[in-house]
């Protein structure tokens, strides 16, 4: 008895592997790379609702940079982004270090800190909007406790509405930062703690001078992750502030989507999108460099 081979000619498995990848390659080339290229092309045309292919040079960029709404939106990217990333990292790091002190109920606490990441930004926005609602929300609650003049009307103030975005954003993402940093802490060699006890170095000094520098690559990972959240952020703004009051809390993503659809100014949206992509590229380049820098330092 010998094993009979199928006579039907079969594709070689490696050929099949290549064929399997083909749809994905096509999809990404069309969906991502094609979209990026097309967007860049459109930013040099006067397209309104539908694409028009007439070269207008950098006119759209000039118009965009002179648009006040874009200036605010782009600025907000850095105000919101800086505060959101800063507080997520700070809060996440503090929580991670505290949880690393052998506390009781660690897994329950961790569950509580992390659950918002399971929720959408829509739900996050709705919950915080309700909480910050001036008539029945926190303001009303604090006033009912006796502080009659307490005002927490963040949402209707053009200067301060952006902080509601920061609070809700940090609430949503600090837990994730904590979990990633906590995993980083746990992966640090436990011998260094023994060594520090032998040398009589206080714990807080160990964290400051030894542990946190060792966490640098993990911090960069968090930075990249949070930056991507910032650059993409759309839903939270739409639900919580609607970009308002006025367009004081506008962000590039909302500016872009509004101009593509509601305002039918494809050219301006494309120019804005191109600038946003350049921003992403810059963030990635900086993070790659700083990661390398961190590696070189250790």
């Amino acid at each position, binding site marked *: 008895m010998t094993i009979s081979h199928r006579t039907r000619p079969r594709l070689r*498995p490696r050929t099949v*592997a*290549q064929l*399997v*990848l083909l749809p994905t390659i096509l999809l990404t080339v069309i969906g991502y790379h094609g979209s*990026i290229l097309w967007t860049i092309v459109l930013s040099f045309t006067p397209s309104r609702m539908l694409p028009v292919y007439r070269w207008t040079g950098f006119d759209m960029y000039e118009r965009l940079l002179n648009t006040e709404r874009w200036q605010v939106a782009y600025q907000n990217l850095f105000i919101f982004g800086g505060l959101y990333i800063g507080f997520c990292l700070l809060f996440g790091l503090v929580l991670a270090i505290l949880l690393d002190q052998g506390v009781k109920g660690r897994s329950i606490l961790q569950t509580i800190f992390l659950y918002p990441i*399971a929720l959408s930004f829509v739900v996050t926005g*709705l919950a915080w909007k309700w909480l910050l609602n001036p008539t*029945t929300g926190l303001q009303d609650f604090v006033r009912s406790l006796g502080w009659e003049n307490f005002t927490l009307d963040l949402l209707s103030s053009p200067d301060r509405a952006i902080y509601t975005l920061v609070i809700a954003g940090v609430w949503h993402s600090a837990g994730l930062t904590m979990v990633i940093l906590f995993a980083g802490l746990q992966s640090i060699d436990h011998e260094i703690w023994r060594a520090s006890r032998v040398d009589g170095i206080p714990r807080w000094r160990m964290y400051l001078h030894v542990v946190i520098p060792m966490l640098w690559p993990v911090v960069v990972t968090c930075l990249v992750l949070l930056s991507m959240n910032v650059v993409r952020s*759309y839903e939270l703004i739409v639900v919580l502030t609607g970009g308002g009051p006025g367009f004081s809390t506008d962000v590039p993503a909302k500016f872009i989507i509004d101009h593509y659809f509601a305002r039918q100014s494809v050219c301006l949206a494309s120019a804005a999108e191109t600038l946003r992509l350049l921003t992403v590229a810059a963030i990635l380049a900086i993070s790659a460099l700083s990661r390398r820098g961190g590696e070189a330092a250790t």
Partner: protein
Amino acid sequence: MSTTRNSGVIIGRIGLYAFLITAAAFFMIPLVIVFLTSLKDGVEARTGSIFDLPQSPDLDSYVIAWTSACIGRDCNGISGRFWNSITLTVLASGLSLLFASLNGFALAMWNLRRANLILAMLLIGAFVPYQVMIYPLVRMFAIGGFHQTLAAIVTVHVLFGLPILTLIFRNFYVGLPPELIKAARVDGAGFFQTWRLIILPLSLNIFIVAGILSVTGVWNDYLLGLIFAGANWQPMTVSVASLAATNATGVPDHAVNMSATLLTALPPLLLYLFSGKYFVRGVTAGAVKG
């Protein structure tokens, strides 16, 4: 000496727990007030403080939200949207995971010549803000004549999820011994046989991890649903956002809104509570190395 040190330690511990409990309160409060509000009735929610306990807690608001709340002019509640979201999630996540696993397998274990180039291409997809593809895709779908159909929204979700999911599977498969594939080739198994009979049974954990990432991603999406799903396949997130914005009577019923919000949040929340460490791995998998 030992007493002073002990009391210092005790004060430190108290401070530690005080901080942790405050933090826990910060994280819990929004969910708690949404829950409390959802148990009230409309009048009570509008007039009382959000921190008041409901006077006669009941699930009436949930029933209204589910069956008769108005979204725009459609007053059939969000139940239809719930099933839309379920269908979308099952189809989009199922297809994404299937393709991502096959892709990851092909990229990791077959020494393909351009594997690294393809990987780099996918990596761009994982980092580019996904909104960039919205307008071009709208145009393409409009030209193809299937804009705002089930096929359109599922395609978009698959396209959006594929890069990161493929990377997750690929990174897992790279860790498997390559000799497994060699043995299977000597035994005469083809690409799909090897994947189905040898690789798939080894991939359960990574399917859970990637599945969590995919399911929460699709379920929680708002913008893609808003633009690509059309009225027939509108997902729950979109309807709950517009439920809060529009209100048929003019007087917002916060109890119903919060019930709907909670119902929207419930599936990923349950997934989170029951999948434990897989969830953490899932949401951080996107972060690892990137």
